């Protein structure tokens, strides 16, 4: 230990009779802070001490290098007493990424016990050992899956006896606390207990690995050099692994956690044990299926299962028609709405299953059907008789979902990036969310909305204003609304203004800057039809009015055209471009661009 870096503690931990001379009795709430001990997971180390536990501890922190166990991560290493037994861990993120071993027997209380925790730098449970009174203790492996660093996370130094918001080693006495920056051999650890033992000179009757290791460690320079090499290679490996970005996935635990009915919901009030099962009203769960997520998936997708296929085709129907054949698409139960066309629902569900659950084929069946291809215009009389089009006597009509509205203007303007997959994109809107993050530059601004970075505590605000699901609870149906906040987005969101500018440029380029052809181009691209004469007149009128406004103040035109990162075609005169942008933006705000009819 470094004599220039003494340990510190409060007076609440008191000096008392130790194993040799004086020891320190711990309060359980007060830490003994050392200035060493920030081991990385490729570094071998050994920590040894004498302890005297006043009683059988249910849980007690003997020493640790970590911030606090309240952080789900608990990153670091630690020696605890759990139900009287010693428990040593190296943790990146408990419980998924960690090593833990625990002695099979409880340690003695009210007497001095020598304890050592040694580690070889291998990131494996077999490299972690506990010694009690100089002999290796029989241990169970609780976890053996460490693949990232154990350093960082806060508090870089060893602490004895207590931890923030944890149960300390109250009333325990510690003495001869020693930290080694290598893995001691078993014989060396015995040397810490028995003064007669001389490291490097094991007795002739010492057998097996203990003898081998000690001899090699003390008398074989080549062995020591190889140990050093292993350490370096491990360091290289760990540093590569630490840099890898992790994505969380679900995995079954080896043995399922026991679940209990909790009395009035209190987590510590266990009543009878409960088991996962499926509702009695549905087909029984076959015995041959594993009782886990795989089994659940098999049960759900069994061709005889009455629900999954119907629920699924109903949702796709809802996507295309605004309503499902069962209107309560989130409720197929006794309080749900009965299907308007039960035979059609059954046929679609059967077709879907027999096609091998082919979603694309299902969509094709729907969109090429006569019912989908009907005109959506409706007479007042038919609107009165069937306001919601439950009887499907006309084509569907509904406001496009948030993602489609944004993707549509990006696609129309030619800005849309068609790349599939990859990490989330951060368009303009994430910089103005409730929890702002830095926006992207370049392609990330123009990816499909499906890829928009999502933070549940402050979701993408444009998506939210356009009724996207908040993703905090399951939502299978969105209610489209019409609010002034949406108007602000269509008119002022840089994403829309920029798209309008680009579309205006494309239209002007395609029409050799003839305004009437350019206006028709805009209209066709955004509504999929040609404008009527009356509509043409309106667009021309708007364009001319804005053209003269911007001609009179070209600086305003320049400013307006500077919205958004995408470069501008400088060959187009600014007032012309700006005036055409206003028209494009107007059409992006027009019902036929945001409502499917």
């Amino acid at each position, binding site marked *: 230990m470094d004599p220039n870096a003494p340990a510190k503690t409060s007076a609440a931990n008191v000096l008392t009779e130790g194993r040799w001379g004086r020891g320190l009795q711990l309060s359980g*709430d007060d830490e003994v802070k050392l200035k060493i001990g920030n081991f990385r997971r490729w570094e071998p180390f050994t920590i040894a001490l004498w302890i005297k536990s006043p009683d059988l501890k249910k849980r007690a922190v003997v020493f640790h290098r970590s911030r606090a166990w*309240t952080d789900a991560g608990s990153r670091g290493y630690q020696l605890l007493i759990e139900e009287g037994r010693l428990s040593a861990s190296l943790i990146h993120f408990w419980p998924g990424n960690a090593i833990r071993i625990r002695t099979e027997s409880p340690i003695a209380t009210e007497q001095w016990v020598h304890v050592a925790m040694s580690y070889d730098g291998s990131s494996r449970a077999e490299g972690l050992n506990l010694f009690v009174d100089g002999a290796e203790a029989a241990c169970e492996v609780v976890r053996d899956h460490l693949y990232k660093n154990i350093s960082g996370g806060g508090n870089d130094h060893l602490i004895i006896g207590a931890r923030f*918001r*944890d*149960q*300390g080693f*109250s009333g325990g006495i510690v003495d001869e606390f020693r930290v080694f920056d290598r893995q001691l051999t078993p014989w060396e650890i015995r040397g810490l207990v028995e003064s007669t033992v001389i490291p490097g000179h094991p007795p002739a009757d010492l057998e097996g690995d203990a003898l081998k290791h000690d001899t090699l460690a003390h008398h074989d320079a080549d062995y020591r050099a190889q140990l050093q090499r292993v350490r370096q290679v491990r360091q290289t490996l760990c540093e590569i692994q630490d840099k890898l970005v992790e994505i969380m996935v679900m995995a079954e635990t080896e043995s399922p956690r026991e679940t209990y009915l909790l009395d009035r919901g209190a987590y510590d009030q266990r009543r009878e044990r409960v088991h996962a099962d499926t509702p009695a009203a549905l087909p029984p769960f076959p015995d041959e299926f594993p009782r886990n997520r795989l089994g659940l998936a098999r049960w759900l997708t069994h061709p005889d299962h009455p629900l999954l296929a119907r629920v699924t085709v109903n949702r796709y129907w809802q996507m295309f028609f605004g309503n499902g054949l069962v209107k*309560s698409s989130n409720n197929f*139960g*006794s*309080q*749900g709405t009965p299907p308007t066309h039960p035979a059609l629902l059954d046929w679609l569900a059967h077709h879907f299953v027999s096609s091998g659950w082919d979603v694309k084929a299902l969509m094709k069946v729907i969109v090429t059907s006569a019912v989908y291809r009907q005109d959506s*215009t409706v007479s007042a009389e038919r*609107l009165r008789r069937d*306001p*919601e*089009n439950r009887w499907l006597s006309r084509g569907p*009509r509904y*406001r496009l979902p948030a993602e489609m509205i944004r993707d549509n203007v990006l696609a129309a303007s030619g800005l849309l990036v068609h790349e599939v997959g990859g990490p989330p994109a951060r368009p303009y809107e994430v910089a*103005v969310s*409730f929890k702002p993050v830095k926006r992207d530059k370049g392609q990330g601004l123009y990816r499909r909305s499906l890829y928009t970075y999502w933070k*549940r*505590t402050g979701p993408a*605000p*444009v998506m*939210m*204003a356009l009724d996207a699901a*908040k993703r*905090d*609870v399951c939502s299978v*149906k*969105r209610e489209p*609304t*019409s609010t*002034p*906040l949406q*108007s*602000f*987005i269509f008119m*002022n969101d840089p994403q829309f*203004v920029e798209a309008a500018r680009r579309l205006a440029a494309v239209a002007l380029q395609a029409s050799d800057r003839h305004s009437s052809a350019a206006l028709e181009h805009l209209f066709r691209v955004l509504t999929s039809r040609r404008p*009527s004469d*009356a*509509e043409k007149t*309106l667009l021309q009128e*708007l364009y001319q*009015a*804005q053209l003269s*406004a911007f001609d009179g103040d070209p600086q*305003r035109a*320049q*400013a307006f*055209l*500077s*919205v958004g990162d995408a470069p501008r075609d400088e060959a187009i005169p600014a007032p012309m471009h700006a005036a055409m942008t*206003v028209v494009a933006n107007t059409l992006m*705000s027009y*019902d*036929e661009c945001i*409502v499917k009819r």
Partner: protein
Amino acid sequence: MSVCSGTEPLVGLSRRGFLARLGLGLGSAALTHLLNRDALGTTPADRGILGHPHAAPKAKRVIYLFQAGAPSQIDLFDHKPLLKEWQGRELPASVRRGQRLTAMSGNQTSLPLVGSPYAFAQHGRSGAWLSELLPHTAELADDLCFVKTLYTEAINHGPAVTFMQTGSQFPGRPGMGAWLSYGLGSANDNLPSFVVLVTKDKGGQPLVSRLWGSGFLSSRHQGVRFRSGKDPVLYLTNPMGLNRQDRRNMLDHLKALHEIQLEKTPDPEIEARIAQYELAFRMQRSIPEVADFSSEPESVLKAYGEDVRKPGTYAANCLLARRLAERGVRFIQLYHQGWDHHGSLPKALPKQCRETDQASAALVQDLKQRGMLDDTLVVWGGEFGRTNYCQGKLTAKNFGRDHHPKCFTIWMAGGGVKPGISYGQTDDFGYNITEKGVHVHDFQATLLHLLGIDHERLNYKFQGRRFRLTDVHGRVVKDILA
């Protein structure tokens, strides 16, 4: 019993249903007539699902000053001299009665009681006890109703704030503001009916935007957060280079395009869309106007304190709340973070009080002077209380307090609440309620009652079940009604 209830989304709403929802009741009114009403869809006639309140409302609007993180009732409101006598001694088992503690202090080997280091005194004719940290609030003691026995079921911030505001610890339910928008509609032409103001640059327990979300209700009922920058509402301002004249020109032509479309397709949603663009145009004026304090006399600014001149501070948000209330915004939700004093309470709590005390009091006073307090309910409070024992090390100068859901204090003012009373009683240790406990659902039922709503009759059917703010609980606390 007649149940006024909505149901799941009405996609493809009928024209009649649409008009009924707007409360216009125009039946077969000519479209041209409708189009001449530029405020269609958001007129004060938008009365929500209830059409009319169940009873004559005492409060027409609410300003909820949410103190996020849970202020220490023991150091502010709930005077417990016994704790000073017991300073440093263990929390008696007879008081704790084996009740669970949080995992944050539950592992401490010692739970030493800690009295408030702040001087308490009685104020006003009502004799309300208040700590020296709230001098401005103290001056208004006779206008306030202190509920000292609120209690909650949640033990940590996320679930507790969610419980307080949505009636459920789980995310996904509508908040009070959304319920009111759904039930009562909007009371103004030019502003949203539910506005959220968050003090800027405050640390502490994080807030999440779903607190002002609409849950399973239509997203038009969600709160609109006003920001403290150039755009109080997201993308309110025209892009650079585009002026109001251009916008008017654009909207006129857009409207004309929509009118052509309406001739072919008689769809009320087109009418609604036109109305929303017009409302947006008006909001581009009305929102900057409401956020601009230059018309406020110096005396008013002074009353709210120096901070009021800095946009985004609690004081500025209090004044903004009054201005929004004047303009008919029904529910104004403020959030002020930073009350979570697990440690270093003596350092942190006085600062929090300096940031909030004067402006909170000034708001009540201001409303009173304008004659608005009678029909405006002001609520001040957090999500739970704090423990009477010390979390962490108790020293001569320092201590902290852990979460305490079993009792806490909030105050209410105006809007049909009895002024100048303290309601409920906790034990001498400030740990358990001895009489007149008010559960969070009771508080919510009372709040709705003040707005003329029977909490059992404002509900919404979702996924096969009728939901309401108070779940299946809640009773109106009649004793605090004026």
